[in-house]
């Protein structure tokens, strides 16, 4: 059991003007509210792309279109704050385009590889098939980060909408194994990736609205004592999440009810590598 080591927290939504296309700004709001509801002094900062990135404890990066994604990666690399703060222990959640740009490289609009930030050992290329669009369900990998008290994260649920194929390198770990949907799409059945306190996923929804355990894991990392070892998760008092749990249950049930059969199932297995 690890008690929170701090009372103050700054959550930064990175470049909502460029990477705000898919509602992922909700992740920042959810983190700030869940901290504040527990009595922490949490500040939510929307960081536009034309200003220096502010120092923060948690950075939430969302999905966006190809052109803005390239611009965001270039600005973040030039700015340097994100990489520096990660070195100092900041928590990062990247979703979709925001996940891809945390990796080593990703494709630009004309399919040329563009340098990512290299904060996760991940390489993304353009997929050859149709875009991955639909509900995505994934079971956290056995070695995925654990919630406070060593509890395993429950199944992850969200909505994916991307054309990229991401391969997790040896310097990072896949976050979860796909149950439904495509995820990373590289044929190994994985979804998302993590390395230290940097975590990326293809799940929109936004992901933390449907997966409050993941939200509290990120908060637990950020609120752990400064001298605690990496991976320490501060134990937070539970919240009354009956609406989030009802939404989770309803979404998971809806996906279970439409299990693919016939050639769709074959195609799905082929794409996810299961």
């Amino acid at each position, binding site marked *: 059991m690890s008690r929170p080591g701090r009372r103050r927290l700054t959550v930064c939504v990175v470049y*909502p*003007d*460029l990477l*705000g*296309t*898919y*509602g*992922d*700004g*909700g992740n920042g*709001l*959810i983190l700030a*509210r869940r901290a504040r509801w527990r009595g922490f002094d949490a500040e939510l900062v929307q960081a536009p*792309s*034309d200003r220096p990135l502010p120092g923060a404890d948690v950075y939430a990066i969302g999905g966006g*279109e*190809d*052109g*803005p994604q*390239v*611009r965001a990666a270039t600005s973040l690399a030039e700015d340097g704050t994100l990489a520096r703060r990660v070195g100092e222990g900041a928590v990062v959640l990247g979703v979709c385009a925001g996940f891809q740009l945390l990796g080593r490289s990703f494709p630009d609009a004309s399919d040329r590889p563009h340098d990512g930030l290299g904060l996760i050992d991940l390489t993304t290329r353009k997929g050859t098939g149709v875009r991955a*669009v*639909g*509900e995505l369900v994934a079971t956290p990998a056995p070695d995925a980060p654990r919630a406070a008290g060593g509890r395993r994260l429950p199944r992850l649920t969200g*909505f994916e*909408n991307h054309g990229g194929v991401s391969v997790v390198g040896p310097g990072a770990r896949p976050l979860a194994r796909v149950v439904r949907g495509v995820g990373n799409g590289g044929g190994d059945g994985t979804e998302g990736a993590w390395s230290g306190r940097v975590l990326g996923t293809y799940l*929109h*929804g*936004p992901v933390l*609205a*449907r997966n409050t355990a993941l939200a509290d894991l990120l908060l637990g990392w950020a609120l752990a004592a400064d001298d605690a070892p990496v991976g320490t998760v501060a134990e937070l008092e539970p919240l009354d999440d009956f*609406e*989030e749990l*009802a*939404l989770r249950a*309803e979404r998971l049930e809806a996906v279970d009810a439409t299990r693919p059969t016939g050639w769709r199932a074959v195609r799905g297995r082929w794409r996810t590598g299961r």
Partner: protein
Amino acid sequence: MTIPSGTRPSGRAGVRAAAACAAVAAVNGLSRALGRGSGTVAGGRVGLALDPGLLGTLATGRRVALVSGTNGKTTTTRLLAAALAGPGGANPVVSNETGANMPAGHVAALAGAPDVPTAVLEVDEGYLGRLLDDTHPEVVVLLNLSRDQLDRIAEVRMLVERWRAALGRVPAPRPGGRGTVVVANADDPMVAFAAGTAPEVRWVGAGQVWHDDAVGCPACGGRIAFPDDGRWACDRCDFTRPGLDAEVVGDELVLADGTRHRIRIALPGQFNRANAGMAAVAALALSAAPADRGPDGGPADVDLVLGRLAAVTEVAGRFSTMTRAGGPVRLLLAKNPAGWTAVFDLLDEAPDRATPVVLSVNARTADGLDTSWLWDVPFERLAGRPVVATGDRRLDLAVRLRYAEVSHDVVDGPLAALDHALGCAGPGAGAEFLGNYTAFADLRRAR
């Protein structure tokens, strides 16, 4: 079933088109008889399958106006049709009024009105290029572009590039011939960039409440700044708001010559005054086209055109009022963050915050399957109002409202939700109903 007189193609092509038209009528009649929808799309699909060139054949010989954009298409189409039709529908106009805005819907509408010389067609954003190529419109109205149904429609910048290519192909208007005038909302940089390739554009400052999809410059990737005076500009290249031919200022349409004209419409909200301004400029452009004169045969007058817009009191049920448990319920449709933001502006036009608001959200194919957009909607603005969440995705709404710190109840079924809201509000009180596309249709069917 005939095709427009004077334009009937001869020979085998004509036989094929006539057969396809007959099929449209037959399938539509069958579809209606079987009670499977209004039949506007089924017949059109069959017609297009028999003759892929049918839309072009049906449009030949007519004056065509197209209306496209993310929000306000259906309303603007209705307003433009009313402006062109004149009092009592003196000049017949055919329009795809049911909102079937893809080619099958256009075919069905045109095939059902073979001798009507003027067509006003609402066009799905993704089909604008096809409609431009097939129907050779005299006027194209481009309202706005923002995120909507991202699982079905392309991201905004992909759409802009497709519009830009298609609009670059349209012919310029010239005396004695038919060309295309584009009426474009200059306040939306995405529309301005797309329309920039067209040979003739009337730029209207119609306003734009939603800038979040237009910060990245579509021309160079720079950053567009939106100052309070509306003259947006890129910080890197010379892309800036075009000079205006007309501007919607409050409830007035201000023309380039400085004259101000009252916009008197029965529809509520600033976004509808903007739609009215766009429709009026489009009606004038169509009247002034060289092929013939105004809708009454004479030169059209802006006040005359604006006066005709007041005849539109609702659009396929939107903005209409129904009575439930003795209380008036206003029905509002909003499909995406920009639309919901505009409707919240409308709610805030009335000072009273005690009227309950019922929110209904579905995520069926026509709505888009992803509900993430709810997190782009500023639901925080509803704080202090009684709010009830319903629709297929009421749990998504409930979670969003929780994090907006808006207290709410969750009720299954739109009528039960309305009754719950009205019951809380007390006898005689009214309510506002806001639904996205199929949620709105669900309520209209259920009542």
